[in-house]
């Protein structure tokens, strides 16, 4: 028995001592069986919340928070509680969880987190600053598990007291706490014996979140139950999460009439009929606009003609004028997305950050106006050659495919509508549908010409803009395909990362919006929906459009799902 196994055994034995129903594990053999019978006699009505978070053809027991591709999507938040969650529906205000505060040093070169007093791991051991220090250092040592990018920002970590963690930064970065939003703290006493933290499956996790006990795990369903030592147990009214394996939207549609799922986020065509219509009294949904979807041109394209056109603002504006955004939303998106008519591309959820000065005149490029686009290109010297397509002012041909992943039918339709518009203004654009992996690869290696893509927004609009439009990120992540480089914008980004007050950040982000709107580096078209459906049959407390206090999704990209879970109450 290795040390890890031994520790797990001890933990199980301890749990069994508490005679919780969760103690049933085969390794305990007869003891467990006897205890299970004891547990079964103290039967009480359990509240089990059935969720659908990810599409898989078979469940694999993997709760390793560092294995982004392989972990079960209920690992973050539910097993590993975040330090602090920034609520993007509330101006990015912090919701304190494992941490109760953080403070930058006066020189901004270090930040000190204060951890909540008295928090315990699910095995009863205290959660201290040593655990957080251990986790950060493990990430620094092993870039494969560096899921939040601390390797680029953190120089060293200290633990001055059991509740304080001091992080020394490589550069001044007041945006750092936001970049730590997806950071899981793992228990040192378990993970210090793990040789390969990426390959570790962590089948019976010891965590800090509300749902740490894996009670049942089969390829078709698993149940994740209440943490016996949860620090915020008073707020937690749900006893177990139940996650049936569902392989796709079609299967979801077939399952819906059973009415067995409480919280999910699927694409359902004609949702009022296919979902709400099944049980109008209980079934509901709210699909507020999410990330901005834009057309992004490869400004570093190796094709001389395309590169010349893409780098010309007149061309990008004409491109934008050729976009029939309403058709994209209504025809391609089943009416679920919302058109984005601002040259700054600001997502509606960040309305409190909106700079009116970045709108108005620049937004005129965001209408659908073929005549105006044609005139713009004529004036800029884009002449039509024999086959009716335009060439660049220097006479080079322009021809490019817009890539969109195969199978993303709504996006493919939207790109089709875009190419129809572009062809109307004499631009030889076409649709290409590589497999998703190829699509991503082309974005990263820069062999594509143009793409329709969204960016990964953070709790404030800064991250989305910073990562997709800063020189530093250009081409390194899929959210930054255009490889845009603007020293003026980089300067504002740098200032933002040095800003210490919300007013400063607001002013700087106002500038970001103006620069982006003036230069139109990407062509925003619409904001895709958030996917969120719920049933009030067994639980109440759901976030709805009447009470839009947070991102309601249960997907792994939304940390607020933890707070959402804590709002839920079983129906008596």
């Amino acid at each position, binding site marked *: 028995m290795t040390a890890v196994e031994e520790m797990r055994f001890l933990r199980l034995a301890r749990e069994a001592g508490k005679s919780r129903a969760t103690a049933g594990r085969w390794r305990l053999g007869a003891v467990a069986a006897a205890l299970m019978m004891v547990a079964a006699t103290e039967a009480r009505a359990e509240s089990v919340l059935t969720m659908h978070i990810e599409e898989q*053809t*078979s469940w*694999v027991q993997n709760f390793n928070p560092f294995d*982004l*591709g*392989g972990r079960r999507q209920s690992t973050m938040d539910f097993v590993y509680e975040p330090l602090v969650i920034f609520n993007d529906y509330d101006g990015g205000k912090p919701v304190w969880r494992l941490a109760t505060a953080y403070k930058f040093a006066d020189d901004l070169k270090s930040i000190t987190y204060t951890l909540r007093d008295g928090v315990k791991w699910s095995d009863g051991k205290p959660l201290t600053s040593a655990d957080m220090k251990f986790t950060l250092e493990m990430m620094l040592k*092993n*870039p*494969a*598990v*560096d*899921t*939040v*990018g601390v*390797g*680029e920002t953190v120089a060293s970590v200290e633990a001055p007291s059991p509740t304080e963690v001091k992080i020394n930064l490589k550069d001044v970065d007041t945006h750092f706490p936001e970049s730590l939003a*997806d950071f899981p703290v793992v228990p040192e006493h378990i993970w210090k014996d793990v040789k390969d933290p*990426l*390959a570790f*499956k962590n089948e019976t996790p010891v965590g800090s979140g509300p749902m740490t006990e894996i009670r049942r795990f*089969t*390829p*078709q*369903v698993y149940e994740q139950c209440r943490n016996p030592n949860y620090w915020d147990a008073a707020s937690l009214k749900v006893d177990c999460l139940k996650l*049936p*394996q*569902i*392989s796709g939207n079609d*299967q979801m*549609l*077939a*399952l819906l*009439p*059973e009415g067995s799922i409480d919280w999910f986020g699927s694409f359902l065509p004609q949702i009022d009929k296919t979902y709400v219509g099944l049980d109008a009294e209980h079934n509901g949904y709210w699909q507020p606009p999410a990330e901005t979807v834009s057309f992004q041109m490869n400004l570093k394209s190796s094709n001389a003609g395309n590169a010349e056109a893409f780098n010309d603002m007149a061309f990008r504006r004409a491109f934008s004028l050729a976009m029939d955004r309403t058709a994209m939303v209504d025809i391609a998106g089943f009416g679920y997305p919302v058109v984005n008519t601002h040259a700054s591309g600001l997502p509606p959820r960040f309305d409190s950050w909106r700079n009116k000065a970045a709108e108005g005149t620049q937004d005129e490029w965001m209408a659908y106006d073929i005549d105006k686009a044609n005139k713009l290109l004529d004036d800029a010297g884009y002449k039509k050659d024999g086959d009716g397509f335009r060439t660049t002012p220097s006479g080079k041909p322009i021809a490019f495919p817009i890539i969109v992943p195969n199978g993303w039918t709504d996006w493919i339709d939207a790109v089709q509508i875009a190419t129809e518009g572009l062809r109307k203004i004499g631009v030889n654009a076409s649709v290409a549908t*590589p*497999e*998703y*992996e*190829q699509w*991503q*690869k082309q974005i*990263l290696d820069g062999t594509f010409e143009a793409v329709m893509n*969204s*960016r*990964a927004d953070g709790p404030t609009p800064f991250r989305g803009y910073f990562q997709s439009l800063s020189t530093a990120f250009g081409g*390194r*992540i*899929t*959210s930054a395909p255009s490889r845009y480089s603007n020293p003026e914008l980089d300067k504002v980004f740098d200032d933002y990362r040095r800003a210490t007050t919300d007013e400063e950040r607001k002013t700087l982000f106002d500038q970001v919006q103006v620069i982006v709107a003036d230069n139109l580096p990407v062509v925003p078209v619409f904001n895709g929906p958030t996917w969120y459906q719920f049933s009030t049959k067994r639980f109440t407390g759901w976030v709805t459009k009447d009470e839009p206090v947070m991102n309601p999704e249960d997907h792994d*990209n939304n940390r607020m799902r933890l707070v959402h879970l804590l709002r839920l109450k079983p129906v008596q």
Partner: protein
Amino acid sequence: MRLSRRRLAVYCVAFLFAIVMNFAVPRMMPGSPVDSMIAQLGPRATPAAIEAIKARFGAIEQPIWRQFVDYVVGLAHFDLGVSVKYYPQTVVEVLGRSAGWTAFLVFTAIVFSLCVGVLLGAVSAWRRGGRFDSFVSPFSVVLIAVPPVIIALATLFTFGVTLRLLPVGYAYDPSLDPGLNFTFFSSVFLHAVMPVLTLSPYLIGEFQTTMRSSMISVLGEDYVTMGRAKGLSEAAVMFGYAARNAMLPVLTNLALMLGAVFGGSIVTEIVFNYPGLGLTLYTASVARDYPVIQGQLLLMTIATLGANLLVDIIYGVVDPRIREGRA
């Protein structure tokens, strides 16, 4: 009973060919496992993490000859490698949990179709040209022609979604624990009804057609005439004399059709979310999980070759005339 050397050599060559094809085919698809792993990380993957993943799984990007040598050496040790999609699970684990379900599905469908198809074929040959035959035989041709995907979707929509008579997914009710009890078995049975009914029409059509033509030729034999002349009942002549002898070509056909049945089970399992090899193969293909695809194709090849071998052997037992080395 023994098989000739030539026959065994054919099997060996087929097996070697399969090994090479299993290696080559997945690699002809665009994309690589490393790309798909990085894609799985999503837009939030940091550049450092992407680099680290590339370094870790770089082994997959070794030169082709090296991959082939590793693959063959692994095979010799019954080591099919580690899955990329379900890392760090091994291919044997991944296939192990699904092979049983597909075997169950395919076996049940074959037995069911064999019973129905042979009976229909025998009766329609006996009364060839009659009203029964003129309906059943053309209908069999239709059954052979309809792709399983259409039958699967139609069945799912009718019985699963609209009438809600049968479960729409899984191999058994996920809330049950597998065990030797009635509840579990009845759940497995209910969940298998639609997939089996989807796989069967094609098989029934094939069996009916083969059985009918084979039976017709047998009906002309002297011993059938004699059986009638003896005054035996119609049923005794039909099944005891004619059908028994007419079964042989059906058996040959069965071995040949095994590949098609596996093909059909892929579509069926995807539609009904049935946790078998087909669903696994589909997921592995999408994820460019070469090790799993290889292992899966190998398993199917062995199953098909094995079935052919078995039929060869059975054939020899059933019909002494074709037993090799005597003719």
